[in-house]
């Protein structure tokens, strides 16, 4: 169905965080560290305070009152130590945005710099095995003997792939508007993927009881993980508003977003595969090298999809992390699966070529009965169905596997395939359903960051109540509503929907009100492997003159349980695939080894796909019945679309050119020169 908030979005009336009117609002503008490591020696706020309109300067010279155990990325101006270039070291509050920004530019900060280290490489002496990887998986797992499996193999591949620093870059910059009332209660309009979690994090940082903080995020302009955890702007707005006694608004610049709102760690991934003469895997090893900051350990679960995908007698997955003088990486759409499946699915293509097998058939042959790492049965698994359906729709049977032989003028044409996977989980959630004016009001602190949550939950509630969707009104995006988990991990609809269904069921019994809390229900879920699967097919054209790569066709076939709403689901799938196209061909943030921090901190230098890059993207799905998931029978679909896209495109580039580019993005530079 059409989005419920469609009309307010197309008429410009949808209100995002920085857009709420506030009497007497003032503006904060942050100052960022110019060194990558060391100490702030002195912040001279005198001249800035003399500038027009300036109300306050915040810095470590007078540390704001925050909780001692605040998250180090949120503990603003508490310490003099600098952990990375771009870290917030001060802020100016003024009556207008122009005055705040001008004073921030003029603020003088002196440093004692130390030597920094910002380069991830696989021989880094600081590499170690983290205890767990995001969110709570073991770092290393395995069974069988990989070396033995490789030795016994008829065909092996041993390949290393690299992915760069990637940035979420939602279109709406991270923003917050903070207001304190006379009783010391704090209201923050925040760009949050979860208002409950944002309230809790802000309260914890400010050392306030959660019931004294309210977070409102009715419309969020994309997040892709970067707004899943509270970001400094929310804390800064709150402490600045406390300092000046007026509402404070802060909108990070696009450049600042690159520094303080998270990013996907660069990865170096070594994949070793062995297969017998029939193509059955004899060994699979996947080792990922990654970075985190010195402030917080964030270890992306990059090798975990190899625990799910293919059956093998010998399996080893491992993560190695190094702590550098960089900002803390965080969630970006399908953390783990997205970069990990790029490597695994590229390596599978290489294995197919080495073994003389069709890449689709190789995957079919190795489809496991149970989850390879855990041995758990799958609640449902339809990877083979996706591959078959996709191959049929894409015309795969007509494909000549020979690389580098199809030419249209200067353009070399090739096709490639890769699999997709993403976990199907849910978290405890509360919801309330009541009768209002003869219609139904459903309340849950869910977030609609563009996923269509408001619309999907309306459909789910209408279904549970047995009424038309027009009679259901869903309220979300406010921490005063019943507690709900974050819009992340493709868990939103499953988690919120479960609670909404239970609340609606209760309402039908009660006649007036239904309240639900799914904590107990979820504890009772059977131990099963729950994942969505998919297959992506790409056709590319590579210029033999310029090395330009253009994607001419992209098809995704997904098996993700019951699809709650076809229109919204298709948008989610093709949106993820479009972002995957960007990852394959253009997205990359450079790390500045000389000065620290990032280069290419804007949208002219960090290229995301433009309209002209995206000619024909198609997404379809198999009808999948799975009663082991949640009341809707749904699997999350926000992330799987980006999983596998880059591998499918890279595999197509190989088919077109005969060349394997093992470092993303696949740019003209790498096509034209083997090692640029």
């Amino acid at each position, binding site marked *: 169905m059409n989005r419920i908030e469609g009309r307010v979005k197309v008429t410009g009336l949808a209100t995002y965080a920085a857009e709420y009117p506030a009497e007497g609002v003032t503006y904060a503008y942050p100052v960022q560290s110019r060194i990558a490591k060391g100490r702030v020696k002195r912040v001279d706020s005198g001249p800035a305070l003399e500038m027009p309109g300036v109300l306050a300067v915040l810095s470590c010279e007078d540390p704001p009152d925050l909780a001692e155990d605040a998250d180090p990325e949120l503990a603003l101006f508490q310490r003099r130590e600098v952990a990375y270039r771009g870290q917030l070291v001060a802020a100016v509050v003024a009556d207008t945005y122009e005055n705040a920004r001008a004073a921030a530019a003029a603020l003088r900060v002196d440093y004692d710099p130390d030597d920094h280290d910002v380069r991830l490489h696989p021989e880094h002496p600081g590499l170690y095995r983290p205890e767990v990887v995001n969110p709570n998986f073991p770092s290393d797992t395995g069974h069988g003997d990989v070396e033995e499996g490789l030795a016994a193999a008829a065909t092996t591949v041993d390949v290393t792939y690299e992915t760069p620093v990637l940035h979420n870059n939602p279109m709406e910059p991270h923003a917050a508007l903070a207001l304190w009332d006379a009783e010391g209660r704090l209201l923050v309009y925040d760009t949050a993927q979860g208002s409950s979690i944002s309230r809790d994090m802000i309260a914890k940082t400010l050392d306030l009881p959660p019931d004294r903080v309210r977070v409102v995020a009715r419309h969020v302009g994309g997040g892709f993980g970067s707004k899943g955890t509270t970001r400094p702007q929310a804390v800064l707005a709150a402490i600045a508003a406390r300092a000046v006694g007026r509402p404070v608004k802060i909108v990070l610049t696009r450049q600042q977003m690159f520094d303080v709102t998270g990013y996907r760690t660069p990865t170096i991934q070594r994949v070793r595969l062995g297969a017998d003469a029939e193509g059955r895997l004899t060994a699979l090893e996947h080792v990922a090298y990654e970075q985190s900051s010195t402030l917080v350990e964030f270890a992306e679960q990059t090798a975990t999809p190899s625990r799910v995908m293919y059956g093998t007698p010998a399996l080893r997955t491992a993560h190695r992390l190094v702590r550098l003088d960089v900002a803390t990486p965080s969630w970006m759409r399908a953390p783990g699966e997205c970069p990990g499946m790029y490597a695994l699915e590229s390596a599978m293509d290489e294995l197919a070529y080495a073994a003389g097998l069709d890449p689709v058939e190789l995957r079919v042959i190795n489809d496991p009965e149970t989850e390879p790492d855990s041995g758990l049965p799958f609640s449902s698994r339809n990877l083979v169905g996706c591959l078959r359906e996709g191959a049929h729709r894409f015309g795969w049977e007509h494909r000549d596997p020979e690389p580098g032989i199809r030419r249209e003028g200067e353009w070399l044409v090739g096709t490639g395939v890769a699999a997709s996977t993403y976990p199907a989980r849910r978290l405890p959630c509360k919801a309330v359903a009541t009768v209002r004016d003869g219609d139904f009001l459903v309340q849950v602190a869910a977030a609609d960051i563009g996923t269509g949550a408001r619309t999907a939950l309306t459909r789910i509630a209408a279904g549970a109540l047995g009424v038309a969707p027009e009679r259901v009104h869903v309220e979300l995006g406010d921490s005063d509503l019943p507690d709900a988990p974050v819009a992340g991990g493709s868990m939103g609809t499953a988690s919120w929907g479960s609670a909404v269904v239970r609340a609606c069921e209760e309402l039908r019994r009660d006649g007036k009100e239904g309240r639900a809390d799914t904590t107990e229900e979820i504890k009772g879920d059977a131990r099963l492997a729950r994942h969505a699967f998919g297959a992506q097919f790409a056709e590319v054209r590579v210029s033999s003159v310029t090395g330009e790569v253009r994607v001419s066709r992209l098809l995704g076939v997904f098996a993700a349980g019951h699809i709650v709403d076809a229109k919204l689901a298709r948008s989610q799938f093709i949106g993820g695939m479009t972002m995957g196209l960007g990852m394959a061909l253009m997205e990359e943030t450079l790390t500045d080894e000389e000065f620290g921090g990032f280069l290419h*901190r804007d949208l002219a230098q960090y290229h995301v796909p433009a309209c002209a890059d995206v000619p024909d993207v198609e997404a379809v799905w198999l009808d999948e019945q799975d009663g082991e998931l949640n009341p809707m029978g749904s699997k999350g679909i926000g992330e799987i679309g980006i999983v596998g896209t880059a591998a499918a495109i890279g595999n197509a580039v190989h088919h077109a050119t005969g060349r394997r580019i093992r470092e993303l993005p696949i740019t003209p530079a790498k096509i034209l020169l083997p090692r640029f």
Partner: protein
Amino acid sequence: MKPFEYARAGSPAEAVRDFAPGTMYLGGGTNLVDLMRLGVAEPERLLDVSRLPLDAIEPVGDRVRVGATVRNTDLAADPLVRSRYPMLARAVLTGASGQVRNVATVGGNLLQRTRCAYFQDVTRPCNKRRPGSGCPAIAGDHGNLAVLGTSGSCVATHPSDMAVALAALEAEVHVTGPGGDRIIPIPGLHRLPGEEPERDTVLAPGDLITAVELPPPPPGASVYRKVRERASFAFALVSIAAVLDVGSDGVVTGCRIALGGVAHAPWRAERAERAIIGGPATGEAFLQAAEAELEQAHPLPRNAFKVPLARNLIVSTLEELAS
């Protein structure tokens, strides 16, 4: 942004008269406002010249005169320009976005500044922005910077597409300024960095571009092609504006090649042109000429791909024009 005064100029003469140190002319603002927000440009006074009556495109004898405040969109949509200088229309249309082209002026397009990441970031050194502070791009990020005509002080590129076509067309820039009126040919407007990378052009303070004059189009077929990894709304990795005229005997009688994305200025490949004119219009001849041109290149590790890219582009483009 530092506070500044804003005023509108009533005429070119008034603009020049009112120009003082600290003043900058404001055209469409698509680059200057961007640079002011970054703190790269810090004018004390903006003199808005975007509404000067210099917005006509008109034939002058066998030439065409394009006023300096003509917007990029209008230049590319003009019937006279499309029919007589299709290469120029194409070059303009590959630049920026529809929104930017609607606002950006011809004069401003010529004077836009490099998009080198260090130049745009006031917290890092840059010889062009702060003379003598150093060029970290040479050891750092130079993936889309220059390979030709560079110096040890600067490896920036000029980002304009339009200027590349104008260089191939040998357009002339009409300038008025404190020193009077002048005509400056393109190429010739933009400098190579040498030891003064802070100077993009030969213009003096207070000089105001009033028009670009296009000479009669050279005989032969012409084309503009731009290479970039994003299919649109991206600066060139390398671009080419080329004109080729081949006699009935298969001998090249005219050839002009201008490259974008490779130098601090639109780069006329004069060596290649000289090698090609008078010779056969064959791929082999074009390849030799391209290689002769690119012998002068000083690629750095991360932009070395631009040398084979420029070579391929020259050969492929000329082959296409010859056929």
